[in-house]
């Protein structure tokens, strides 16, 4: 016994103690520095944007059209275009993503190879660079699907075979699909087994159980997924670059086959292709501020809903 104790003591109080303490302090320091750098970068970015953008940021800026070759005026069409984009995108992606998530969590058996393949695809889809989605949208939706529709139904007249809101939204929905699938899956998993069993034991079918018990309990999860997808979609530019975003439009889009303006794209062209980049600097910053506020507040809402789900899951 004594021998063991002595050995233990040696382990705990050996001369190595001092060395490891210095190492420990060093690594704590490194981690603190890393955290500090991240926070500092965030605040510098936010600070510059708010500082530079606040002068131009006003109700008038949000509610009026650009004027004078887009060197003056507001961003109304870009804001509206962004809204339409995310709405059409959600209409396409949310039901599709929800159904996929229901299949994965409720129907696929644990060792289903097909489900594993779907999960792998979803994960892969989530890491595909967004510009690839843009190119895919151009090739598949516009040149294949759109042009095909024109040939088949419009007698070859060009209508759907060119960039527009519909194709841009569908392209964006592919990009946001993984976000929705994963959030809905998470939400479905928080519904306790006891509740499913209660329903099944009453003679409910699996689908009745999903419809009456599982889905109503997952509404907030589906909402979180939607909001995260929307906020991601609102900020992305690459997928809509070739599929529907316009440099400038004098009117708001009136149909799904129209092109549209978009906040992110607006920032991009204002800072690279404007007739007077210097002069439009305040507009660029204010537009960035609007976009940032939009996505930040959406994310905030998602975080609040998600924390509620987590609390319920416990």
């Amino acid at each position: 016994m004594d021998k063991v104790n002595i050995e233990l003591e040696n382990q705990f109080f050996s001369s190595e103690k001092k060395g490891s303490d210095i190492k420990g302090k060093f690594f704590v320091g490194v981690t603190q520095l890393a955290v500090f750098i991240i926070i500092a970068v965030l605040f510098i970015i936010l600070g510059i944007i708010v500082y530079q953008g606040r002068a131009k940021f006003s109700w008038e800026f949000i509610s009026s059209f650009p004027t004078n070759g887009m060197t003056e005026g507001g961003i109304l069409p870009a804001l509206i275009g962004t809204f339409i984009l995310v709405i059409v995108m959600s209409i396409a992606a949310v039901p599709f993503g929800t159904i996929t998530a229901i299949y994965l969590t409720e129907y696929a058996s644990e060792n289903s190879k097909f489900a594993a393949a779907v999960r792998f695809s979803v994960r892969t889809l989530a890491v595909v660079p967004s510009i690839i989605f843009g190119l895919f949208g151009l090739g598949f939706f516009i040149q294949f699907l759109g042009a095909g529709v024109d040939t088949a139904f419009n007698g070859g007249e060009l209508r759907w075979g060119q960039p527009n809101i519909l194709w841009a939204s569908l392209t964006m929905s592919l990009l946001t699909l993984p976000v929705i699938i994963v959030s809905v899956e998470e939400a479905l998993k928080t519904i306790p087994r006891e509740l499913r069993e209660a329903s099944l034991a009453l003679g409910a079918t699996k689908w009745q159980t999903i419809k009456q018990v599982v889905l109503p309990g997952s509404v907030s999860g589906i909402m979180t997924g939607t909001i995260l997808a929307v906020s991601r979609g609102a900020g992305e530019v690459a997928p809509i670059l070739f599929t529907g975003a316009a440099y400038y439009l004098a009117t708001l889009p009136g149909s799904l086959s129209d092109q549209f303006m978009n906040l992110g794209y607006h920032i991009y062209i204002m800072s690279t292709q404007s007739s007077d980049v210097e002069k439009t600097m305040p507009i660029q910053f204010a537009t960035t501020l609007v976009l940032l506020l939009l996505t930040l507040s959406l994310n905030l809402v998602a975080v609040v809903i998600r924390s509620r789900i987590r609390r319920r899951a416990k």
Partner: protein
Amino acid sequence: MKDIKIHVNDLSLYYGEKKALKEISMQIPANKVTALIGPSGCGKSTFLRCINRMNDLIPSVRITGEMLVEGIDIYDKNVDVVNIRKKIGMVFQKSNPFPKSIYENIAYGPKINGLKDKTQLDEIVEVSLRQAAIWDEVKDRLGDSALGLSGGQQQRLCIARTLAVSPDIILMDEPASALDPISTSKIEELVHQLKEQYTIIIVTHNMQQAARTSDHTAFFYMGELIEMGKTNTIFTKPLQKQTEDYITGRFG
């Protein structure tokens, strides 16, 4: 023969390779309370869940042998599991009301079966809640969430919910194990009243509860049915040494 509700013949259950129930054969009488007792992990709950095919939900489970309910093998591939579960209700160990109103909890089963008529639903809700001896406590707040009820009330609500689909058989998986003594005695009283109309099979850890509530008792040990008989006999002069040891508290 007519008095026997369930015939079990050589029923075995495997979790993957592991054999959890070993050639169980027993006869469960109609309109009586049958208690399943035995130490934790002896297979009594697993056996109970065989009776309404709740084990179907676990992919690795395989079952051999026969489970005849009124002469029909419920594991026959022509049998619809949904209909089985409508006839054989289940009350779980942990009360599990839906996060809906008290009314909607009871109306859930009938609605699933396609009943839409409001007056009929109202009637079923009231009758079921009365049968479960909880009507007086909740009649003024049927629209409130069921989650606001106490644990004992929730469990009686779950019993009422089961009664609402008018089953023949009610399976109870340690229905009072999480409840205080007063709620427990209410549940036991309820079991006693319900056996007039229903065949009840109750899993319990509590010896006194088995002795108080049941007509027949089956003792399970290590996946085997050791002994089954009249509750009186099992508790006073069991045939098997293992049963006696368990009942007198020498193990388990």
